[in-house]
């Protein structure tokens, strides 16, 4: 296995008495898709929030490229190369799809004092945005306002924006939710292609997609890791079957 890019030790998040994430150790390596499964309320989204910096951990550490980023802000983590998508579409509705991606691409070089140069004249940023739109299957929708896109297309835009930031780590919170069959299979192909150059954490309820893509699967229940290993091991595990999978993969 490769050196992990992003890993945690003893990561916990408490909301009052509730341990939403409890003592989780997880390792994301380049060239791997690491799927996280679990019933609703298992702590999957909270885990992503802790990794992306949207929430601060109660205890434990998050390490990225051998640096401790447990206390780093969300925007700093994003600039370091940790990109995330949201379960609930989180875009700029009034802007065009292209501008959504262009802003995302611009984030890698914020240039807070560039007041006089036209943003659209910055060729590398615009090219990155175009590529991200194309990769996510939205090449023809660039000029449309994001609010005019269909629900499935907005989900694709959500992914395109993450890609436009050119991250090393991708934290994807249910990327396939709300997509049609055709878009979903396109997205599965895209994730397969992204695997080589990224470390990917995938939270997803579509079991077919998870077992088709994942190199490692971690199953969470009540904020804790129940079992972690290659798909065959998870499929064979009786504990997992009892806790979560039920008859679905029998």
């Amino acid at each position, binding site marked *: 296995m490769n050196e992990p890019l992003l890993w945690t030790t003893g990561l916990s998040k408490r909301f009052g008495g509730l341990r939403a994430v409890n003592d989780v150790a997880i390792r994301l390596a380049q060239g791997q898709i690491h799927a996280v499964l679990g019933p609703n309320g298992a702590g999957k989204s909270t885990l992503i929030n802790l990794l992306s910096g949207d929430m601060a951990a109660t205890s434990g550490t998050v390490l990225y490229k051998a640096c401790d980023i447990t206390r780093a802000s969300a925007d700093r983590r*994003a600039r370091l190369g940790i990109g995330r998508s949201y379960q609930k579409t989180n875009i700029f509705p009034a802007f065009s799809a292209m501008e959504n991606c262009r802003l995302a691409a611009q*984030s890698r070089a*914020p240039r807070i004092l560039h007041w006089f140069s*036209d943003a659209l004249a910055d060729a590398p940023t615009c090219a990155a945005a175009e590529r991200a739109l194309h990769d996510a299957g939205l090449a023809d929708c660039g000029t449309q306002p994001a609010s005019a896109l269909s629900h499935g297309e907005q989900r694709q835009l959500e992914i395109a924006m993450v890609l436009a*930031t050119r991250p090393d780590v991708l934290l994807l919170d249910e990327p396939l939710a709300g997509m049609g069959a055709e878009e979903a299979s396109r997205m599965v192909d895209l994730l397969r292609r992204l695997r080589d150059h990224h470390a990917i954490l995938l939270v997803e309820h579509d079991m077919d997609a998870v077992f088709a893509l994942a190199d490692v699967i971690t199953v969470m229940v009540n904020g804790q890791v129940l079992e972690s290993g290659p798909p065959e091991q998870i499929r064979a595990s009786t504990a997992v079957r009892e806790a979560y999978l039920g008859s679905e993969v029998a």
Partner: protein
Amino acid sequence: MINAKRIAVGAALIFFALFPFAGATFYTELVTKVMILAIFAMSLDLLVGYTGLVSFGHAAYFGIGAYTLGLLAPKYEAASLWTTLPLAMIAAGLAALLVGLFVVRAKGIYFIMVTLAFAQMFYFVFHDTKFGRGSDGISLNFKPSAAIGGWVPLDFANVLHGYYFVLAAMVLVFLFLRILLRSTFGRALQGIRSNEHRMRSLGFPVYWYKVASFTLAGGLAGLAGYLATMQFGFVNPEILSWHQSGNVLLMLILGGLGSLYGGIVGAFVFVALQEIYSSLTSHWQLLLGSTIVLLVIFLPGGLASVGARFKSTLFGSATDE
């Protein structure tokens, strides 16, 4: 459609350029005042309309710019434009920077209240200290002028010089903001207004963008304040009061938030309504208030959106900008 807009802008510029020759000095001075308020309104639009920061204390920076000239003006000669104007903008910008470092951490209603609190603080500094010369304020013995060697191309004791200088400043501020809003910085500000949370998760240091926007808006408000002292020849604490902060917000709402024309149109309509209503009745604020309520109900995009609305009813497509 773009051509129609260009013609309208061209016509407006010609109108402004020729206006002083058409009317009495009273109207030239009135339009000068309106153009100063338009600069003030545009500076606030950068915050409210483009960054999503509703400041209810913007008069503070207008006032600091105004007082800078009042305090720097020598007793027995005209102040030099070359030094006092940049210093006024720097002073207002610096004050906005210091305040901005604190206030942009607050959100929504809290931001409104904190900006108001800081503005009130500045108000009382000028109102209640010897430094600000109290509630009477400061009168200029001489209006500023700009000299190059022995030649004095601009002497603001001359109403026309003041008018054209303010007109040029208004056009320059408009162009500056237009370029700014198309830059990477300006587009990031608009992203923050639209979805601050996502901007942060994309990697933008949102805090510093807001501080920069607050500082810039303060500096430009300082320019407007400087011009006000230059125009009226005196400055008193009332120009920092919360009424002034409220008035400039009303101008923006009248004209239309998030459109640079909105600030200019709003300033004109606001002052025009004020003049007309106050000539009718001493309860003119009642009329002004009702007009604003009606406008907000029937024209939520402000007066600057009239063109786009007209277009969309005629041609059935809503195209902004």
